[in-house]
């Protein structure tokens, strides 16, 4: 049923390693992207004209930078950013370089995601917190982030799926994982079953991320009557 190539890849643990590399790159890049994107999203939210600490100039500037990175297609951004990867991790090849690229591409995405999640927090609730004498830092930590938590988790799920897609694309310039297996063993050596196997595995990983993420988001959302 399976081609020789597939059996060889499986026997040598290459597919298993591909699964692991995809998961590992996605999770690590997501974590770093969130660590950068979430604070950016907070800054975008609070410095907005309607935010708790309006700084229109900074807000516009940051918005422009974010939009710039978001409007460049990943495949182009990746190639353009190779020198940056070399600067940060010393190499422009392999997983470490790919993670740098994924983070550069995903952080602005996460920032917008976080910004819109935070925007959902009712202005009245923020006002109530202000009326009680909360400082801006207290509003961020005790109101904005906790109240937006379910939306932030949902945003994280969507970002992770996007990052997983990016990680597969990074195969074209030397990334590893299921994307690379599909390209070099499936596509270039004419083994459609290898390609389809990678597709299938990717779908499974995406489904797991989504189901678990949405479940956590739901579970932590106190607006829903359990």
């Amino acid at each position, binding site marked *: 049923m399976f081609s020789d190539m597939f059996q060889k890849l499986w026997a040598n643990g290459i597919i298993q390693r591909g699964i692991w590399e995809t998961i590992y790159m996605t999770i690590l890049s997501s974590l770093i992207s969130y660590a950068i994107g979430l604070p950016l999203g907070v800054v975008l939210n609070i410095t907005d004209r309607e935010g708790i600490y309006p700084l229109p100039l900074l807000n516009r500037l940051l918005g422009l930078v974010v939009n710039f990175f978001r409007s460049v297609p990943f495949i182009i951004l990746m190639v353009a950013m190779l020198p940056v990867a070399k600067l940060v991790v010393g190499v422009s090849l392999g997983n470490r370089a790919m993670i740098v690229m994924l983070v550069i591409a995903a952080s602005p995405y996460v920032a917008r995601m976080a910004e819109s999640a935070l925007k959902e927090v009712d202005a009245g609730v923020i*006002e*109530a917190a202000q009326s*009680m*004498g909360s*400082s801006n830092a207290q509003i961020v930590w*005790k109101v904005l982030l*906790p109240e937006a938590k379910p939306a932030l988790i949902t945003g994280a799920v969507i970002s992770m799926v996007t990052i997983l897609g990016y990680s597969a694309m990074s195969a074209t310039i030397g990334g590893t994982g299921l994307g690379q297996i599909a390209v070099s063993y499936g596509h270039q050596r004419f083994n459609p079953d290898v390609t389809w196997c990678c597709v299938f595995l990717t779908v499974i990983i995406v489904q797991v991320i989504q189901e678990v993420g949405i479940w956590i988001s739901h579970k932590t959302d*106190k*607006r*829903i009557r359990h």
Partner: protein
Amino acid sequence: MIELRELKKTYTAAGKSIVALDGVNLTVHDGEIYGIIGLSGAGKSTLVRCINLLEKPTGGQVLIDGQDITQFTGKRLLRLRRSIGMIFQSFNLLEQRSALKNVTFPLEISGVGRKDAEARAMELLELVGLSDRALSYPSQLSGGQKQRVAIARALATRPKYLLCDEATSALDPNTTASILELLKRIQQTLGVTMVVITHEMKVIERICDKVAVLDRSHVAEEGNVSEVFTNPRSEIGKELILSGEQELSGGGKGRRLRLTFDSESSQAPILSSMILACQMPVNILFADTRKLCGAVYGQMMIELPDDEREAGKIIEWLKNSPVKWREEV
């Protein structure tokens, strides 16, 4: 004591300026429940938000216990706000926190430890009659219960003042009544001074001692509720306060008198005495009695006979009676 002096607020939005408050003066004494009534857009919310500087006035002064707070910033402003509670029309509870944790919020931000904060919060939930719902989330509470939690939260730091911006406007009449009762009880037992914003007469009637009628950025009139409500002088006051009146009969061209009765005179059969004494019919256009602060007030609009001489006789009789009256034009 809260004193507003020549308070002004102008918003600038999209290049246009909107005057929301134009030289407002009023004084709220300690222990009072001070009502501010006005139509939508009159500037009520702006006014109350200037008291805790959620809105920065563009002119005039806000004196709290004699101190002008309009220039407060930073830590001083935060400390001021902690001494003034506020409740809102839409309750504004933190949706991801339980009732208990909502009440501990103001304590947390002013640095009270968790144990003490929770003990104090339970006390307050007890006060508002919700100790059995401490662990419920706002989504599991009714509107009235949410407002009770909001009241408990506003009182957590033992503020001297409580600002209420349309606190009952989203509630049904029965729930409104119970929330108003709670506010009254809080004023009586804790001595909290309150500023109550509303567009509803019944809110003022039920709990307020003083009232100011706000009309298009100005205070149109002000005084004790019993005076203003039985005898509104400003056009807007009449409109708001007497708007419940529906003329029972269309009425003719005759002169109209508004009679007002206080607790004493409302007991006596004034009208029958008048008709018997003058031996002539009057047309009753409107009649109403109200309970204000526990006392009964009534008013009645009558139309005099067209005949000048007959009308004069009635007026003569009224002048010698204890009834307060005034001719409507």
